[in-house]
């Protein structure tokens, strides 16, 4: 099972700044192991952030996103104490959802 994400959500003025650090190998499928066999690609394909039932950011990623991906963005309409939920799905069908409280 995948490791939890680290999510920080802070209210700055009237917008909420969200910073996410995910735990994922993000294997490109280009590298070879010691035996010369290609290491299969394994990476996050879809990321969705929701606040109050509304999607505030959705992303499609390729294997070129770095290992243990970092993402930050801002949206309007958040309030202190609200929950923000982030979900990712990788190309093997694994998924993980974590939430954080806006502070």
């Amino acid at each position, binding site marked *: 099972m995948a490791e939890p994400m680290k999510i920080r959500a802070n209210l700055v003025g009237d917008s909420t700044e969200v910073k996410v650090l995910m735990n994922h190998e993000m294997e490109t499928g280009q590298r070879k192991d010691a035996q010369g066999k290609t290491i299969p690609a394994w990476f996050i394909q879809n990321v969705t952030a929701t606040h109050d039932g509304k999607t505030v950011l959705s992303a499609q990623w390729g294997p070129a*996103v770095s290992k243990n991906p970092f993402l930050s963005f801002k949206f309007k309409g958040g309030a202190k104490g609200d929950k923000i939920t982030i979900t990712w799905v990788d190309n093997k069908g694994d998924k993980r959802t974590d939430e954080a409280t806006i502070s």
Partner: protein
Amino acid sequence: MNRKRREVLNTGGGAGLLALLAAAGWVKPETALAQAWNKAAFESHSMAETMKELGGGEPAQSKDIVFFQTPDIAENGAVVPIGVSSSIPKTESIAILIEKNPNMLAANFDIPAGTEPALTTRVKMGQTSNIYALVKADGKYYVAAKEVKVTLGGCGG
């Protein structure tokens, strides 16, 4: 874990995979639809191909797209911070493309109304290359480029 199902999931890819996930009740159908992964776009090798798969024509150069927190020289190509912001009204999506990577498209972000068209992430770069930020706003495409020099590649190795 059922091995057969694993295989099906692995080979299914893209939309097929999400359909399976939806069928298995792991993701709600409406979420699955919004999350479909554009396999063709991520496997394309040139700007023109990527544009075609993303559904746009020739993008216009724009000075309203700004790179921030993006280095001129990246020491480690495995972790290159990229920040892109767009001041074009009605920005709907921002895509990050790296010209000399095996596949150009690195990430595509959909920006709903209410979310600022500015974000940062980190990407891998195989070698010194131009980075393109492709912005879709009000149905039209705009692009800006920045060269990032890489001293140690982040792909292969």
